[in-house]
């Protein structure tokens, strides 16, 4: 009886079996990389905004406090997007003929809010509260990065759950004096590990429940 298969079939079978496994492994690896890439997480992706607002200019050059615009950050879950009136509190006096600011003035005239494109957007099933983080010594910088150096707003962190848990599992690494919450680039002493542990104790943070599901999923 004639042979059904050529002898090279042996090698071919071995290669395809091994190759199949490798392809599956590679696919899983690639999928994981995609999930952590800016394509999915939108880290460092700059969005077009109605007005090219520069945090760098307003924070570093002018020294305006975060709370001047994000008014509700200490009192409520949301930090608050400033109303057009807040912009106009300065821009009715300075740069009042700038073409770049025309959308702001138009919004003021017509009473239609500006449509900012949201950069930090958590899923609706996550309960996040700015006020508690600010009150317990988590600085703006810890999540939003060096906003004082961003000409245009972008995300520096993934906002993925694993990232949230990094800090919820070890808050002493990120915590700072409440007085320093709205500052950028802290002096070295507050970064010391023991200082963090002291603060966690001082602010009465219940670390044992920070990793419970209900803390964020209520």
């Amino acid at each position, binding site marked *: 009886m004639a042979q059904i298969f050529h002898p090279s079939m042996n090698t071919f*079978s071995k290669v395809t079996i091994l190759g199949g496994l490798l392809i599956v492994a590679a696919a899983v690896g690639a999928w994981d990389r995609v999930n952590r890439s800016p394509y999915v997480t939108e880290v460092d992706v700059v969005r077009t905004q109605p007005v090219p607002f520069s945090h760098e200019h307003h924070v570093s050059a002018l020294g305006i406090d975060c709370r001047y615009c994000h008014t509700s950050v200490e009192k409520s879950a949301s930090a608050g997007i400033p109303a057009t009136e807040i912009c106009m509190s300065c821009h009715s006096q300075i740069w009042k003929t700038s073409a770049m600011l025309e959308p702001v003035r138009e919004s003021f005239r017509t009473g239609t809010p500006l449509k900012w494109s949201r950069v930090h957007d958590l899923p609706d099933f996550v309960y996040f509260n700015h006020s508690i983080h600010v009150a317990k010594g988590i600085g703006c910088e810890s999540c939003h990065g060096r906003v004082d150096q961003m000409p245009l707003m972008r995300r520096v962190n993934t906002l993925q759950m*694993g990232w949230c848990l*990094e800090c919820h599992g070890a808050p002493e690494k990120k915590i700072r004096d409440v007085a320093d919450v709205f500052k950028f680039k802290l002096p070295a002493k507050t970064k010391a590990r023991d200082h963090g542990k002291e603060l966690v104790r001082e602010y009465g943070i219940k670390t044992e429940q920070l990793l419970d599901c209900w803390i964020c999923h209520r």
Partner: protein
Amino acid sequence: MSKKKSRRSHGSDHSGPEDHAQKGPQHPGDAGHAEHTFGSVTDKISSIVLTRKTSRGWLGGLLFSCMLLMVLMYASAYLLARGIGIWGTTVPVGWAFPIINFVWWIGIGHAGTLISAVLLLLHQDWRTSINRFAEAMTLFAVCCAGIYPLLHLGRPWVFHWLMPYPNTMGLWPNFRSPLVWDVFAVSTYFTCSALFWYMGLIPDLASLRDRATGRAQRVIYGMMAMGWRGSAKHWQRYEIAYLLMAGLCTPLVVSVHSIVGLDFAASIVPGWHTTIAPPYFVVGAILSGFAMVMTLMIPLRAVYRLEDFVTNKHLDNMAKVILATSMMMAYGYLCEVFYAYYSGNEYERYVTLNRALGPYAWSYWALLASNIVCPQIFWFNWARSSVPVLFFVSLAVNLGMWLERFVIVVISLHRDYLPSSWRMYYPTVWDFAHFLGSIGLFFTLMFLFLRLLPMISIFELRELVHEAEGEA
């Protein structure tokens, strides 16, 4: 060992038509392979796959199964579109038909593993005629079972969250939960059963390859046979590997359904929270599995005229296993009642009373009748040799084991600690659609298996014939 080697050397390449000439002496008749030679065994079983024409009955059966399979597809698509609210499942009965069906199918699978692995290690030669078929049944039943927990997730597209892997959420499954153990138990079970089944098929696939006439058949069976030549070296390694696999599969007979039992036992629902659950689930699984093998084997051996291979002796043995496991189940049911009484716990007592006298009492009594009362007829010799009785009892046990899971899941949940949240459970048409649909999936796979692969292990039967020759 030398004896073993010599009989093993009758590999696929020695099974050509020339074997017809050498008439082997008759088998003592115990397993009933009388008057068969190596050649006739191979002929008879491989002809079902290779030479016989596709029968109308097979085609009709496959079509009907495919119709039911379509019901499953349609119901699942609708479920994905609308969510699990289409089922009757709701608070407080959050585990209803899907989990009942899951446990039922997983249980049915157990007979395959028991027959193929445990009986092999115990040298029960009669298993040879039914192990291939029972293993296939295991695989297909696990396929059916696997559907339900996935669909019951509500978001089946993130099923991979069940697996522990370094994910972007920084989360691991809760390893203290038996539901997570279930994921591992069932996937291990499926993998091992599939490997064991396939390993058992290899020498037979080689026989098919050698006997096939068409080019496509030869290539396909040839690929699947993975270059099996039936040399003494092949057989020696094969024998070792097969025993090792049997050893690996043996603990699975106990572990898988124990863990399914723990899904219930580890919770604090009255009626579930008992230590007897794991062994009691395993015994129930074996009972339902043997009943299913019997339900399927009786019509099959008649249709394909396999009475020479699957003899009344086999049915008799299976009936004895059913009787034994049914008695163990009776012990389990008695224990449950006794626990409820002896615990003095008012919730446990209420659940037991509610089972026997509550709104679902019909299911409890029907379960006792079909699982415990019906198999008692197997105490009589005539009943174990009467095919209609065997068939009827096997059907009754299949039904009874489904009802048992209904009793455990629904009755316990629908009235637990808080009377204010008591509610009756009513299945919807979609619950039934998914149940019938999974039966369709099972039979579709089964019909394809019957047509495309040898349903009885050819080489192991040849071995039996050879042994008989030696004894004579």
